């Protein structure tokens, strides 16, 4: 059991150091000799997984900061430069952006585990509160990190969240101005968020140290919820917990890698691939998924101040949990009622999350209010009452007894599945009713879809031709340089061909020695020149609507696939909303709008454009672009080709990503298998 360290170094140097700084003893007593309950299940590996994720975020974050420029005019561009030009930049960026989500998935599981097994109860109150503090810090860090790419959601998310503080009576507006460092979210805001986003992870690491320290003072809770009494109840941390945690971490990495390599933008919002525009608010502002339940609570309350208070209370109430739930029995395993209410609470949280992503109208508002009320009811009324009236089942005498009388674990998993399935069905019912009659783009089959997807070089070349001859008259392609045409995983031109194409363009350069700007033939390092000098010019020339840059279009457009399809999309790796939308839009023009539709002057009717009224006239017609590879010269073919081309411009490292993904997956699965058998061997002596 815990006590003075057993660590006795043999080596003379280590002895010398140990007498002066007993760091070896500290490490030994914390991570080697530390006794851990022998009945811990895999839900307990999430502590280690969280430490790993904090490490991943700090390492990738420090590296991204080496390439990132925190300036309102350059931030978005620098992020694109990281993804497109820096060696493995795409990997590091996707690791970091998806890593944030993984961090939150792990922390939510960790928290729910604590709730289920009563890990917050005496004597672990401080341990639990430190955890709540870490969670709050994580939310602040995640929020500020999301602002840094300076896309539309970054900007408007920052605006909405900072405005929460304006609800504070009297001083609210001054506080918001203080946060912004200006009259609105702008460059000073971005700069300070960058600074704080760099700082907070280290603060988190500091609180994590306290969290672990507190843990090592009071010892780990366990599924039985009884304290270890004898040597027989525990095993030393190393090798038992170490190997089990390693296996858990590797399995989690498989899950993580799936997102990074196959569905890197699944959890992101397409709007964030549009550069921040202080003049246009996106149709729907949705925070990152991990804030959605709290966002739903905020919106459920029709009063500004009360909404903000409710949202923050929803988190702060957790800190009071040790005193709200006074039941002596810790583990919900032996509390039949508490266990059922736990699962109901899980479903309520998931429901709130779902509602947070939906527009605040109709049935969603009512559902949001009911679930918000239940959320607080659970903590403030249900748990205090339950702890008085519930009759708990007998708990095992010791952990060793618990290990011998194993059962129930499967039952818990079973009930979880039943509850989740029921919740799923309910949601499907709710959603299929409210399904709008909006037309969604047909799902086309793309060569670059799926885990082994590759671009069809011929198609990308044809798409480039369509872009050059048609789209480029109005749309820029700012992030694509001529040299990119010769990059691996692209249209497959040689460097000479790329240089030859570049030299057909006139590029503005200068100033020269006499201070004049001049034109010269393009070089491979130059970027496709824009058709208009600035946004105002583009706007005037196009009936008041500036044609957007197309480089990222295939990632900046999406549409709702609805529940449960959006969950299956994760498994089938469906990532082609953008190209589907582009191809559909180009073919979606209709001469005669529906009779009841009022088309504004100078606009055209498009079936797939949100709102149906688009400023762009039908750009393509059959036979307009001549193909020399025999592909059909139809609008349908042009549309598909240019959509595929734009998928490449938006995600130029797609092939490299999927290829590396396969290698990483195979490696991780082998490692997980080896760790599993090693774990079995190690634990064979312990059971």
């Amino acid at each position, binding site marked *: 059991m815990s006590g003075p360290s057993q660590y006795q170094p043999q080596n003379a140097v280590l002895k010398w150091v140990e007498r002066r700084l007993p760091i070896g003893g500290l490490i030994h007593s914390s991570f080697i000799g530390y006794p851990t309950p022998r009945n811990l299940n895999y839900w307990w590996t999430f502590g280690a997984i969280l430490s790993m994720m904090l490490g991943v975020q700090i*390492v990738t974050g420090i590296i991204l900061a080496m390439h990132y420029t925190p300036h309102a005019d350059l931030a978005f561009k620098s992020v694109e430069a990281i993804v497109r030009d820096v060696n493995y930049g795409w990997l590091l960026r996707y690791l970091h952006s998806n890593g944030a989500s993984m961090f939150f998935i792990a922390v939510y599981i960790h928290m729910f585990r604590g709730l289920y097994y009563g890990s917050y109860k005496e004597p672990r109150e401080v341990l639990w509160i430190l955890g709540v503090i870490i969670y709050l810090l994580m939310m602040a860090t995640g929020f500020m990190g999301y602002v840094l790419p300076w896309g539309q959601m970054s900007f408007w998310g920052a605006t909405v969240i900072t405005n929460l503080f304006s609800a504070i009576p009297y001083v609210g507006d001054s506080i918001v101005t203080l946060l912004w460092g200006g009259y609105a979210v702008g460059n000073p805001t971005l700069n300070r968020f960058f600074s704080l986003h760099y700082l907070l992870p280290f603060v988190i690491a500091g609180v994590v140290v306290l969290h672990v320290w507190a843990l090592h003072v009071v010892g780990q809770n366990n599924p039985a919820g009884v304290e270890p009494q004898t040597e027989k109840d525990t095993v030393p941390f190393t090798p038992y917990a170490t190997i089990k945690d390693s296996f858990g971490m590797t399995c989690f990495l498989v899950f993580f890698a799936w997102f990074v390599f196959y569905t890197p933008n699944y959890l992101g919002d397409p709007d964030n691939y549009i550069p921040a525009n202080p003049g246009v608010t996106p149709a729907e502002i949705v925070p990152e998924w991990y804030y959605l339940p709290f966002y739903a609570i905020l919106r459920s309350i029709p009063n500004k101040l009360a909404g903000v208070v409710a949202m923050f209370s929803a988190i702060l109430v957790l800190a009071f949990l040790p005193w709200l739930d006074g039941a002596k029995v810790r583990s919900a395993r032996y509390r039949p009622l508490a266990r059922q209410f736990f699962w109901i609470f899980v479903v309520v949280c998931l429901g709130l999350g779902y509602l947070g992503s939906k527009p605040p109208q109709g049935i969603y508002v009512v559902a949001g209010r009911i679930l918000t009320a239940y959320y607080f009811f659970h903590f403030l009324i249900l748990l205090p009452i339950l702890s008085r009236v519930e009759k708990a089942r007998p708990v095992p005498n010791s952990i060793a007894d618990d290990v011998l009388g194993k059962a129930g674990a499967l039952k818990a998993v079973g009930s979880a599945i039943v509850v989740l399935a029921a919740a799923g069905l309910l949601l499907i019912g709710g959603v299929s009713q409210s399904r709008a009659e909006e037309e969604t783009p047909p799902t086309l089959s793309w060569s670059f879809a799926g885990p082994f997807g590759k671009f069809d070089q011929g198609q990308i070349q044809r798409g480039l031709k369509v872009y050059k001859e048609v789209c480029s008259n109005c749309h820029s392609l700012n992030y694509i340089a001529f040299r990119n045409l010769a990059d691996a995983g692209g249209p497959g031109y040689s460097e000479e061909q790329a240089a030859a194409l570049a030299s057909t363009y006139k590029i503005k350069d200068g100033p020269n020695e006499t201070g004049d700007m001049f034109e010269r033939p393009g070089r491979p390092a130059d970027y496709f020149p824009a058709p208009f000098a600035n946004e105002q010019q583009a706007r005037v020339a196009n009936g008041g609507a500036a044609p957007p840059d197309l480089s990222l279009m295939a990632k900046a457009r999406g549409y709702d696939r609805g529940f449960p399809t959006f969950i299956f999309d994760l498994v089938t790796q469906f990532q082609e909303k953008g190209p589907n939308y582009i191809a559909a839009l180009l073919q979606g023009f209709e001469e005669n709008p529906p009779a009841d539709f009022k088309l504004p002057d100078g606009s055209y009717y498009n079936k797939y454009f949100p709102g149906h009224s688009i400023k762009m006239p039908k750009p393509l017609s059959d036979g307009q672009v001549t193909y020399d590879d025999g592909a059909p010269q139809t609008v349908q073919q042009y549309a598909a080709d240019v959509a595929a081309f734009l998928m490449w411009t938006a995600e130029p490292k797609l092939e490299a990503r999927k290829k590396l993904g396969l290698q990483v997956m195979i490696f991780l699965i082998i490692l997980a298998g080896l760790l599993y058998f090693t774990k079995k061997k190690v634990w064979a002596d312990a059971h």
Partner: protein
Amino acid sequence: MTTSTSAEHSRRDFLYVATGAVAAVGTVAAIWPLVSQMNPDASTIAAGAPIEVDLAPIAEGQAIKVFWRSKPIYIMNRTKKQIEEARAVAVSSLPDPQSDQARVKEGHDQWLVVIGICTHLGCIPIAHEGSYDGFFCPCHGSQYDSSGRIRQGPAPANLAVPPYSFASDTRIKIG
């Protein structure tokens, strides 16, 4: 517990070693991208493409400085006197022996093209200064002659000649 045989032992040891080895390989592989990202990125490399320089405006006895790959390049139109001085010295007596002919392009003997970075610790030497009618580095006093060769001071080597070629009599392509 059953008594374990030595075969079982060695099988177990093999499993442990294999697991450790695979984990170690994975760790090393994971470090690779973290280091590789420090190298120049694709746009930097692309910007380092060859450049062309027009020599016509450079009068005899003048030197200009252009930048290629973020490095200053001196292009010096040498006078007869400078060329003669550079060729008069005994090559074997130089700290970094190299003939003037080897440092210029045949038929274009008046043009000296060197990277203007002192081989001592990287300062930019000043053209047409110092005791050898060439370059003088103000940082620690290295002296280069009219062929850009080190003659005196702490620098260990001659000013480097970048890769270049004559596109025409009055145009060179550096890189």
